[in-house]
């Protein structure tokens, strides 16, 4: 067990180190602005005095590494500083919105993951069947269509033509769960469609790779029933690749949500990030980027660790 623990610890260290480097990049990128934040906010025409006052107010005169550590310490405790555009605390601006974003991504994942894994396995089992071929062509469509194309088609059909679901997903804090699920159905469907086919295809490929291995042939030659070969001999060995597929797609959902939020005017983190980029509200951009990047890195980290645990060779060392 010690070997696997040290591998996991090592991976964990690499993951945290990466996260650390990424915070430096996110913080440092803003420092590359021509001029500084003060001139950026107050404009080129601002007087030296007002610039200095601004710098004083936001502690911009302190050395870079001090400001970085202060920012990082704040970020860890949930305090991201103050928005340059409207002077309000960022945590207040993005708190509820981040929750909305995770809700939407989780909603889509809850639909997409079970469907994708089950149908991916079925496609592998009935390799070459009509179902399998339908799957391949739908994958092509899913990776070729821009997110907004899928979104507008869904809106056109389910909202404009049929009137079943609202085209704007404007949820409020007070909404109950049922109301929320109803209002965010179309964005969740869009996200699901985007990742579903891809996830199915990867699950299918993982299983198919496995089915070509000698020990699977051996299980057939031992006279095992077909379902037993799949469920008992193939599946435990397919766990690691399937976990990876799921995590990869969850990570993608977290990011893909940005576009979908804009299409459906959903009050999420992606929406605010896009607005902040247009307004060059750098502190908000920093905060939103950090949340997205950290989630993405942590999901990948989790996937790696789970697939290390699922590997029998590492689990039972010599």
């Amino acid at each position, binding site marked *: 067990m010690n070997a696997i623990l040290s591998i996991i610890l090592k991976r964990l260290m690499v993951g945290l180190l990466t996260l650390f480097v990424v915070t430096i990049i996110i913080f440092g990128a803003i420092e590359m602005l021509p001029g500084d934040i003060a001139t950026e906010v107050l404009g080129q025409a601002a007087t030296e005095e007002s610039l200095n006052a601004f710098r004083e107010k936001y502690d911009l005169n302190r050395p870079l590494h001090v400001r970085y550590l202060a920012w990082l310490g704040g970020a860890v405790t949930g305090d991201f500083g103050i928005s340059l555009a409207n002077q309000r605390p960022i945590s207040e601006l993005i708190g509820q919105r981040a929750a909305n974003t995770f809700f939407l991504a989780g909603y889509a994942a809850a639909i997409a993951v079970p469907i994708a894994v089950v149908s991916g396995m079925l496609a592998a089992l009935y390799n070459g069947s009509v179902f399998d071929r339908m799957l391949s062509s739908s994958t092509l469509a899913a990776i070729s269509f821009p997110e907004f194309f899928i979104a507008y088609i869904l809106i056109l059909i389910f909202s404009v033509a049929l009137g079943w679901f609202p085209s704007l997903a404007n949820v409020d804090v007070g909404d109950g769960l049922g109301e929320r699920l109803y209002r965010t159905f179309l964005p969740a469907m869009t996200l699901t469609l985007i990742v579903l086919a891809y996830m199915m295809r990867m699950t299918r490929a993982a299983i198919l790779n496995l089915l070509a291995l000698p020990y699977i042939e*051996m299980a057939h030659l031992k006279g*095992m029933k077909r379902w037993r070969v799949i469920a008992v001999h193939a599946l*435990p060995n397919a766990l690691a690749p399937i976990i990876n597929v799921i995590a990869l797609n969850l990570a993608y959902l977290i990011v893909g949500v940005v576009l979908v939020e804009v299409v459906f005017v959903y009050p999420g983190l992606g929406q605010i990030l896009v607005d902040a980029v247009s307004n060059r509200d750098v502190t908000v951009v920093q905060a939103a980027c950090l949340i997205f990047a950290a989630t993405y890195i942590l999901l990948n980290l989790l996937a790696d660790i789970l697939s290390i645990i699922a590997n*029998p060779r590492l689990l039972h060392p*010599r």
Partner: protein
Amino acid sequence: MTDLLLDMTDIWIEGRSERRWKPIINGVDLKLHRGEILGLIGESGAGKSTLGLAAMGYTKGGCRISRGSIRFDGQEMVGAPHNTLRKLRGARIAYVAQSAAAAFNPAYKLIDQYCEGPIKHGVMSRAEAQSDAVDLYRKIRLPNPDEIGFRYPHQVSGGQLQRAMTAMAMSCRPDLIIFDEPTTALDVTTQIEVLAAIRDIVREYNTAAIYITHDLAVVAQMADRIKVLLRGDEVEEAPARQMLSAPQEDYTKSLWAVREFRREAPLPQAEGTGPLVEIADITAAYGPVRVLHKIDLTIPRGSTVAIVGESGSGKSTLARVIMGLLPPSKGQIKFDGTPLPKSSRQRTPDLQRHVQMIHQMADTALNPKHRIRETLGRPLEFFLGLKGKAKEARIRELLTLIELDPDEFIDRLPSELSGGQKQRICIARALAAEPEFIICDEVTSALDQLVAEGILRLLDRLQREMNLTYMFITHDLATVRSIADTVVVMQNGAIVEQGTKDEIFSPPHKPYTELLLSSVPEMDPDWLTNLLQERSDILSPKDEP
């Protein structure tokens, strides 16, 4: 032996490639009685594995049995429903694969994989199967039979796994076992024990078997009858002893004759010329792992030295050190009296030119996108500065030298050559540099025996004509017997023994040399029996952890 167990008649099997069905087996018959062992031999592409699997009513993906009848114990298997076949497989016909490491599921303990068959076929309860497994593990002479089953496949060595797989095949006490090259991937000293274990257990339970191999000496030990296949056709079939002593067909005779090749004594060298290569006190390591330890070796001009050893003995590493691909941590190599810089990067092109190497796998040693003209032309241009017509003429000369028609071959890609032809091109590429010393790293071990013999004869002829010096790395003692002047035996990165061929091959031997030499199967059908008799007095079963 009148009870017919398996009756395959007029079997035709096809495989699909490039959108066409291509024949693999063309109308072969195969009959097997209870308790009988049939040896199925042939070179690669003979279809022996395909035929063996067909005996289970099974074909690999992309293959089909297009015609014929397979009756097992009176029951027709061609066209039988999946469930009928499934109930036979594992229970009454079992399979032992070539690579046990790949054929065991990495996620389960050996004993659980053993028990799966008997439980699911309703032969035994789990408790019965477990105690039965331990019994069989003991019979097949696995170390620690009580607990080895509770290990995972990757925790057990290759030779042990192969025996565990034989035990697993035996778990339902089948009437027939198909052995598909079960010892091909093993070293000779390990092979012996697996062969003995297989033979004993099959005899004890009077199980019929089809033993598939390309190794004549192995099949001689195992089989009652031998069937020879060539490109999907049956060449001949006869009882083992009769087949070994008096083969009828030309093809079989040529297979048998391969082992007879012996090179003539080397040319006497002119007086006053020192040794060509002197290796002194070489020690080398991959990172912290020491792979060569204090190697001292002198290679006389115009001779062939064979380096013999099993996998992990360091023999290929020695070649890499001489070529300058792995700089040694200690020691010196002199070529023709001048010390060679340790790394190939420090050596001048002229030094590099004199020492050439030929790899084991001609497939990966030739750039698939380069035509023969380019492959052979580059060293001519690089080392000798040949250009244009002179280069073209020399390429043609080289092709003639290796017995390939220049007009036919000069514009071909490697993918348009056979295995033997590819190896010839590699030889020509080495010759293009006009070397004095050539390292041959297992150059014949990936080839069929007949083709390999052709390569050995070619190398021998070239040596005579061009006064070349060879270092021949091999694990195959038959090759050593045919081509070596002096022999170096290596084990675990050190030299165990060295001397002239006669010295090494005649007693007294060092213990390891003795073990190695005695483990090489011979064509004599009684060889294994006699050997085991001898050894049972001296040695206990040896197996690495």
